[in-house]
């Protein structure tokens, strides 16, 4: 299992870097699909099949199609004409990003993450009717407030998008 983690994690990281580095926005978007699919596999490795499926259907599917659609419709294919006005931006970003990566790496190598107390084993989940049932039950019990607030958050996002984009209010 551990070896398989690296098989997925390395492409996930490489494609994420590619999303940022590519000059052509369509390539960026396609690499983001690769990244999202890789993360979905990581979810499967963690026995979170529902989340993996949601990741593929919602992110890699619906949202990325929308992304590509907008990019192509607006003709944003090549990022020409975008001039970097801050000459120091790249080196400074590399410096701080690298420092952050090293810091995270050192910290991660020094800690062992304990399993969450009272966490369900795959056997428990199976006995309770499977991933979907367990997640659904948690959403409407322990995480009820978070669930409701999320719905408000989405509503605010919709209102905001309409306010900013609609020609006549």
């Amino acid at each position: 299992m551990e070896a398989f983690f690296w098989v997925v994690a390395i492409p996930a990281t490489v494609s994420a870097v590619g999303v940022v580095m590519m000059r052509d926005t369509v390539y960026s978007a396609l690499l983001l699909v690769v990244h999202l699919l890789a993360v979905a596999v990581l979810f499967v490795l963690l026995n979170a099949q529902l989340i993996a499926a949601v990741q593929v259907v919602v992110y890699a599917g619906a949202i990325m199609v929308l992304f590509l659609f907008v990019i192509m419709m607006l003709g944003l294919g090549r990022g020409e004409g975008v001039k970097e006005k801050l000459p120091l931006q790249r080196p400074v970003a590399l410096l701080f990003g690298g420092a952050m990566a090293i810091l995270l790496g050192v910290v991660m190598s020094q800690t062992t993450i304990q399993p969450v107390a009272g966490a369900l084993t795959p056997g428990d989940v199976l006995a309770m009717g499977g991933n979907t049932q367990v997640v659904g039950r948690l959403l409407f019990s322990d995480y009820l407030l978070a669930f409701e607030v999320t719905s408000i958050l989405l509503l605010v996002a919709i209102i905001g998008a309409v306010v900013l984009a609609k020609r006549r209010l």
Partner: protein
Amino acid sequence: MPTTQELIAISPEIILALWALSVMFLDLLIAQSRKSILAYWSLLGLLLAGGAEFSLWGREEILFQGAFVQDNLSLFLDLVLLLATGLSLLMAKGYIKDLEMEHGEYYTLTLFATLGGMLMAGAGDLLIVFLGLEVLSLSLYVLSGFRRTEPMAQEASLKYFLLGAFASGFLLYGIALVFGSTGTTLLGGIAVAITEGGLLGDPLLLLGLGLLGVGLSFKVALVPFHMWTPDVYEGAPTPVAGYMSVVAKAAGFAAALRIFLSAFLQLAGDWTLLLSLLALLTMSGGNIIALAQSNMKRLLAYSSIAHAGYILLGVIALNSWGLSSVLFYLAAYGFMNLGAFAVIVALRDGEREYLALNDYAGLGSRHPLLALSMAIFMLSLAGVPPTAGFLAKFYIFGAAVQAGYGWLAILAVLNSVLAAFYYLRVIVIMYMREPAGQVAKMTHSPALALAIFLAVIGTVQLGLFPAAVVELAQASLFPFLGS
């Protein structure tokens, strides 16, 4: 299923959410010429929510498996948020009409933003902190770009959104690392996990805490995470800028109090050091750059940054005096800062706003009452007795000295002296400088006059008779610190 008791305890938040929705529905029914009804309708909702807060006073309710806490602390902060929202709506009513952006969504988003702030104030779970923050921020991104045809507003909105999303990323990363280290996102659970798991020096936990700090620092605009503030305040509609300066700060500090005190109290030795450095940078940075400003909104933006630095002293002091003075400071700051923004809103000739400092010349003789109000707000922001700003600073610096941060208090006092220069300059310009051309015109509106009047009353009242609010602030700490 939530129990009836839970629903009653969270009723202020429910009322506000329903009210925001009702504004949207009413917006469909009301003709464009009569949209100001929505302002009064929203104010009614704020009053009802405030009434619900009062009726809940004195309880400590832990709701939804610990995700939300309705105690006196959250009630006090909610009241500050509701009051600030009310003042900003009074300011906004005429303003958004004159600038042709009077849409129901303005009120809906304002109410939702306040709801987000209230959720942060009562959060018992890092998830709710994050969601509340996002509800607040998303509404503010849109509100700051509400004047859609204005390039400056678009710039403000986009800048705020990009940087805000980046900061949210930090916050979320911090939450993830804290969860990885402690195995829970409940604030109380984190404290238990730190004790029982012996996580005091755990690097993962410390890194998570640091990232959480970065995310929150951005929201309350501490130096060096303040870059967005002046541009956003300048581009946003003036009532929104005033609203942001108070509500976003109060909500950010509320979340910081919850996170640092109920979850990470045992790591206090680590974060107080970091925060005192930030406080020093924030006070000095804000004040020094404010000296050079010639635009009123930018001046108030830098001044609000400096005030966040002062407030931080109360958090660092980490005693009950310090925490109650944080609450008092937020209340006083709400009145005086929104008052100052209300005066800017009043100085307007239809669509034209008078934002340059030099536009204030001759105001003392032309609009004596308005100039007097502005003078009171400036004196209070500078911290001159007998105003609210003086007592607020007095309490907070006193708490810092008591906690052994004498050096920080001395630097804070020096900073206030520096700050007095630019606040008093506004007064000097108003009363002593001859206007170069025409004196700035003033827009008369009963709602706006009421907002300024209330802000003056609040500023003077908290300065002369602070006892009631101080007692309220002290009472709000009781169950929170006791637990």
